């Protein structure tokens, strides 16, 4: 049981280090066991060090940094043992445009090994999808779903330059 755990833990930790470095453009992260001799008696800590910074408490990371850390953890497991599908609801909402695009590229890449369904309002994310659905609310309060082409989302999510007023 312990050897089984070690094998999985080591593989996922390797993935996590690599993927976090990729998502954070050179940051360092790892999964640290509280009790390496008896893993089942302790927990597992996530340590993340964004680029050019010291390691600090996870709570003190910024919103975007926390999101990247959480996503790196999900992808690290997915690369070792993919789930049949992934359903992610606006996981890009704290991300700036550059990080949102990096994450979308990684999801696109990972979607070769597992199915990803992602709800997003950010155009920089939607442009990487293979297929696009738009959900709208009819005047009677019921939802409708239509398949969309990328250029059709202009109205829903396009960040329009201010009309000259």
């Amino acid at each position, binding site marked *: 049981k312990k050897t089984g*755990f070690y*094998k*999985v*833990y080591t593989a*996922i930790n390797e993935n996590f280090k690599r993927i976090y470095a990729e998502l954070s453009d050179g940051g360092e992260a790892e999964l640290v066991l*509280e009790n390496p001799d008896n*893993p*089942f008696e*302790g*927990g*597992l*800590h996530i340590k993340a060090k964004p680029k050019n910074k010291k390691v600090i408490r*996870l709570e003190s*990371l910024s919103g975007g940094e*926390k*999101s990247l*850390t*959480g996503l790196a*953890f*999900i992808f690290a*497991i*997915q690369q*070792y043992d993919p*789930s*049949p*599908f992934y*359903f992610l*609801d*606006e*996981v890009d*909402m704290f991300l700036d445009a550059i990080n949102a695009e990096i994450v979308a590229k990684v999801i*696109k890449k990972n*979607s*070769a090994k*597992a*199915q*990803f*369904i*992602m*709800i*997003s309002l950010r155009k920089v*994310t*939607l442009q*990487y*999808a*293979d*297929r*696009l*659905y*738009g*959900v*709208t*609310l009819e*005047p*009677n*309060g*019921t*939802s409708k*779903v239509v398949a969309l082409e990328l250029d059709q989302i202009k109205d*829903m999510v396009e960040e329009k330059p201010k009309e000259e007023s």
Partner: protein
Amino acid sequence: MYLKEIQMRNFKTFTKPISITFERGFTAVTGPNGSGKSNISDAVLFVLGPKSSRVIRAGKLTDLIFNGGKEGKPAKECECSLIFDNTDRTIPIDADEVKLTRVVKISPSDPSGYNSYFYVNDKKSTLTEFEELLANARISADSYNIVRQGDITSIVEKMTPVDIRRIIDGIA
């Protein structure tokens, strides 16, 4: 194995029977605030998580049933189905597709106020059978592959070190 289709009827803002098909790869869902995007992920959690508290933002299970919207009549039951491609037989059923269906009906005579029904490939099933099938395929409403809106930072903020270790236990 992958998720081929989500079917909903009278589930939150999805009133008329609707079917959304999915392929492998990367599918994105977008739309205005309040249009019903997160309600789709609630439908997935509703089917996969009979006992999970994550499923509903609402208080009671019956809050998931279409409430009538602007002027319509509230419905008396809601139904959701997930159809998985099972050609690799991840779910121990000898069929290329597995359809998991859950229905909740308002039932004033029942102490909880509603009844829950489960179906596997349109044949009546039980909660226990449902849970066994899902456990085999290692999918559940509480697993890390479903991230609800606003939850992405909770892996880092709210989960305890033991919670995180348990995710790895589940895979080992």
